[in-house]
């Protein structure tokens, strides 16, 4: 049949993964995260938060209204920016932020996740997740604004601090389970041998790395409002700003997915069965829920912490987080030596 290749191309599972889960899923999660962030902060701060748009839903429609506003808002492009980079960087950053999702399996059934069950999925997902900050730096640099440049510089400093922590702490899972395949990592943790229990140190380091990489409190340094206005995004408005802002939430979600698989046991204790419901829907829901818990916890931190100074954040990373990550890695090697997972 001539149609078969075309059909295969359209129904190509990785494409679906990016389109359905990657785009719509991250969008939904970003919306929930933003809503929760505003609502939780409001509760801690003894306010009500979003309310009037839909009192019955706790003001959730407010987030949608905000998105509509961002999209319809006038796009103001200052005359002095480097136009091509200015347009492309935020959009590319957003897309690259979603890309790791292709390599993140939400089920162990290979018929639903052919790409994700390849043997180096963890490595590739991690590698892809380190790309967007470069584009953010480009966005700030192209803005031709002093605050944006300072923000970009800060971003580049922070990258040097968290990258190593993120990679070492998450790869400690590979050290323990002796595989780079996320499906195998999850299967090794079945049913309750979760790495968060067996190796909490690496988990702590990984969460610290996520906080830094997505500029969540207390490491909200690149866009620290009271010195650099909005950091790299100072000159952005309208839809392009929404890409920038949404990108941060998407990256947070992607990291949370990886952590949910690696440390929180993915779909464990559930064992995916055949068929779309048991093999696809239920395990994905479990994983997304676990990831959501991490995202919401990160959102909650905004309400209780201030922000560190740049040098203190770097110091915290090099003095605390990197040793933690290395200790976690060593701990994992010990786990592998004892043979907990085999």
């Amino acid at each position, binding site marked *: 049949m001539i149609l078969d290749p075309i059909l295969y191309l359209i129904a190509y599972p990785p494409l679906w993964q990016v389109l359905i889960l990657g785009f719509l899923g991250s969008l939904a999660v970003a919306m929930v995260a933003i809503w929760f962030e505003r609502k939780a902060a409001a*509760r*801690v*701060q003894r*306010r009500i938060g979003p*309310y009037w748009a839909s009192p019955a839903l706790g003001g959730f429609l407010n987030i949608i209204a905000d998105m509509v506003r961002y999209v319809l808002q006038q796009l103001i492009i200052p005359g002095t920016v480097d136009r091509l980079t200015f347009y492309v960087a935020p959009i590319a950053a957003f897309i690259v932020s979603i890309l790791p999702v292709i390599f993140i399996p939400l089920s162990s059934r290979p018929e639903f996740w052919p790409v994700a069950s390849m043997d180096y999925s963890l490595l590739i997902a991690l590698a892809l997740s380190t790309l967007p900050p470069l584009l953010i730096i480009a966005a700030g640099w192209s803005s031709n604004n002093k605050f944006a440049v300072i923000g970009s510089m800060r971003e580049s400093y922070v990258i040097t601090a968290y990258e190593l922590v993120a990679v070492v702490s998450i790869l400690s899972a590979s050290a323990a389970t002796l595989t780079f395949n996320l499906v195998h990592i999850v299967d090794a943790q079945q049913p309750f041998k979760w790495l968060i229990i067996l190796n909490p140190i690496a988990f702590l380091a990984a969460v610290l790395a996520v906080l830094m990489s997505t500029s969540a409190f207390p490491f909200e340094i690149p866009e620290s409002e009271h010195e650099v206005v909005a950091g790299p995004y100072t000159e952005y408005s309208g839809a392009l700003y929404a890409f920038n802002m949404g990108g941060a939430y998407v990256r947070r979600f992607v990291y949370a997915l990886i952590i949910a698989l690696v440390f929180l046991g993915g779909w464990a204790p559930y064992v995916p069965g055949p068929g779309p419901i048991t093999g696809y829907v239920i395990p994905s829901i479990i994983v997304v829920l676990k990831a959501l818990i991490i995202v919401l916890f990160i959102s*909650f931190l905004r309400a209780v*912490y201030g922000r560190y100074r740049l040098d203190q954040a770097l110091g915290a990373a090099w003095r605390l987080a990197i040793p933690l990550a290395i200790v976690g890695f060593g701990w994992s090697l010990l786990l592998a030596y004892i043979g907990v997972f085999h």
Partner: protein
Amino acid sequence: MPPKISLKKLDRRGGLFEGVKSNIHTLALGVKYLVDPQRSTLLYPKEYIEHRPGYRGFIIFIKDKCISCAACARICPSAAMKMVRVTEIDPKHPDKPRQKQYPVINYQRCIFCGFCVDVCPTEALYHVPFHDIVYENLADMFLSLEMFQVEPQRPATSEGLPVVYEVDEIKGLVKRRKS
């Protein structure tokens, strides 16, 4: 006992244990309020505050009490109050119209200091306890003598419920619906 100076020292405890402890304190307090928020937000158009008597709000003029002394216009610190000259016909002497002076107010300038109310020798001016009124254009804020004598309608009263705030020992400001 007279006041005295007291020299204090910052409590600079360091160490991992203290750090972990204060982190836990911080997070625990955040979670406590996350679970049990003690809000005092006023849902404005649906609720409005009923202020105590004595609140310095809009000013109403009682023409019958006024003796046209102009003290209110003279003491007004922002020159919001002005005297206007009107011709009045006394019902007893309809053939002899009299010239009288009465104050009018310009809410573009008024700062609600209450000097005019306090200086009026006959209590011809009084405050109503609110000032959330919307004018559609600036010219409307310059009240005419007639407008100055009617108590304005609060916009919130049409759809909102009155509430009062009370100081509570545990929760700070507590909102109470007034029945």
